């Protein structure tokens, strides 16, 4: 352990907060699935990486910039996820936690193997000049892709928040989340709401995947790491809370980044998991879990 200088510490803080935006987008779908459907979606990491691979295909085959490609990737993921939920997960609603847990685990394994078959097991990355450029923010130099990710996160989280809070679809989602039985009695098609929520979460995961591909490297098995990060973000922010996910993402980004600066990058995940466990023990509902639910 060494105490870094003030400049290094502030740089770590700023870049961690910006990176938190990426964490939030990759975790948002997981939070929606947990909060609305009580579904522990173990295939979430693979949905993230599917987004990264779609971004890769659009870039390498069509020359489409990954950020523009988000407009294709997000709906594509939703189109994949909707029938997946209707066909495989909806029949399991009300039949306990184990069946959907095992189903999503199976889907995750299938997903990883499909990636290997389709894209081989090679390391990939979305190579763009802005993905590796630094930018100055108030005298502190941070990766431009972190700032871009944060901006995308604000748009995505803000849009989903407005959708949930201000639209008819959102009202149904909130109703299904609070009391699915009562919502069904009042005419809400719970199955359709769940499938739409799952598709919405997958779309967000796809957006996160593209950002992951731009900022880092990815391969068929990379999704598992983002599933774990997602759980930490959801616990920090509060189950099912859209704005809480953003706060959780930023919190985790800052904790890991500052922790990495103080203890070394090798301790990032360790520190993140310690905070995750501490929150589970002390405030399991997360930062905004109670306030917004």
């Amino acid at each position: 352990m060494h105490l870094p200088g003030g400049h290094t510490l502030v740089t770590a803080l700023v870049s961690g907060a910006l990176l938190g935006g990426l964490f939030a987008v990759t975790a948002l779908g997981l939070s929606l699935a947990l909060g609305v459907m009580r579904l522990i979606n173990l295939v979430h990491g693979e949905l993230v990486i599917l987004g990264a691979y779609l971004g890769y295909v659009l870039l390498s085959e069509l020359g489409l910039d990954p950020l523009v490609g988000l407009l294709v990737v997000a709906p594509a993921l939703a189109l994949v996820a909707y029938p997946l939920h209707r066909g495989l997960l909806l029949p399991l609603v009300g039949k306990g936690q184990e069946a959907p847990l095992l189903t999503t685990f199976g889907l995750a394994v299938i997903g990883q193997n499909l990636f290997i078959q389709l894209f081989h097991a090679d390391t990939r990355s979305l190579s763009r000049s802005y993905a590796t450029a630094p930018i100055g923010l108030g005298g502190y130099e941070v990766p431009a892709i972190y700032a871009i990710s944060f901006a995308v996160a604000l748009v995505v989280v803000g849009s989903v928040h407005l959708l949930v809070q201000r639209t008819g679809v959102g009202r149904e989602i909130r109703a299904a989340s609070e009391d699915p039985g009562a919502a069904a009695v009042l005419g809400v098609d719970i199955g359709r709401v769940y499938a739409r929520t799952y598709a919405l979460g997958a779309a967000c995961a796809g957006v996160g995947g593209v950002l992951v591909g731009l900022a880092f490297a990815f391969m068929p098995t990379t999704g598992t790491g983002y599933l774990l990060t997602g759980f930490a973000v959801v616990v920090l922010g509060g189950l099912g809370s859209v704005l809480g996910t953003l706060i959780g993402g930023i919190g985790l980004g800052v904790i890991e980044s500052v922790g990495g600066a103080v203890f070394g990058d090798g301790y990032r995940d360790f520190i993140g998991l310690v905070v995750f466990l501490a929150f589970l023990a002390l405030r399991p509902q997360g930062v905004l879990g109670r306030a917004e639910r």
Partner: protein
Amino acid sequence: MRIGARQVAVVAVLVLLATGCGKDGTSAADSEIVIGASIPLSGPLAGFGSFQRWGYQHAVDQVNQAGGLRVGDSRRNVRLILLDDKTDPNTTSSNTDTLISRNKAAALLGSCTPSLVVAGAVVADRNRVPMVTGCAPLQAFKSVKRWQYVWDVFFDEPDLAEAPFKTLQGAGVRTNNKVAIVHDNGPDGAVVGGQLWPMLAERYGYTVVSKQSFPVDNTQFNSLISNAKATGADVFLIDAVTPQAVTIRKQMASAGYNPQVIVAEKGAEPVQFAQALGNLADGVIVGGYWDSSFPYPGAAQLRQAFERETKQTYSQHIADSYAAAQILLDAIGAAGSTDATKINDAIGRTDKTYVVGPVKFDDQHTSKLPIAELQWQGGQTKVVWPNERKTGNLLFPAS
């Protein structure tokens, strides 16, 4: 006790089945020789595994196309069974057990990197099944145990660690002589990055201003890079697997850290490194033990065959895997039998120049390959050291 017709029929069928199975098994064993390998076809080391698969299969295919392997008085086809160890040593161990016990492999070929190779090698050695491997640096291989049935053809870590310094010295380039080191804490990363580089840097007149390590599954490196940048080191030495090396290079650029020399051992070897990074790969140096320009029999043809069949850029891993398979096949032929002890003795007597150069094992079951230094230039690797093997000049500064 009465025995009815039904019981007799059941016993008869069982006897017939047992006889039939035994006959089939004997027939299969007589007609073909089974060789097995557990290699990383998925996971972080898949970039290596894909080349190993081709190298092993190519050697076996050549033998079969020539009418099979001459063993004693007969020619027998060779069947290669490849299992994916998913870059997990535990899976390598269980795969190796499977290859020996279920697939009845007469001999084995190794995985890649010390942790995977050793995981399989320990099982092979315990079961007294001969194994020839590349892809395991010799110091890490030798440090595990006194091997009886496992043989390693690869480079020696001290040679690899010293090559960047010799390259810079040979090219006569000038830096501020400050070195920053980041390395994973795996077996070879800890040796090369943790021990050898700091020692050699001092010997060559450099000052190590930063030395940091990280777990082999780490995904973010901002703090490491920030610390290295803060030291102003002109020479940045990285020892990491490919996914990490790609992320480190990207994060170096996004942090505005542009050292004059970038060395990325391990991770920068496969072509996937350059494919993932594009122009950012240019200038990155990595140790190598083979290039198709080396004056060894079949070197150029091996590259041509690979690129013709796969339409991909070759990697040096096609050479050590191809050579390992050839050494094993030659030994089986020389043994004139699939008896494990005879094959093992024949491997130990190997004294021949293969596509990777001369191979002759020492008493610790290792045969050393000389090191060259490669540099990515325009999506291709160029040999930039030693001078007698150069195919390009050192790109300096790297970034």
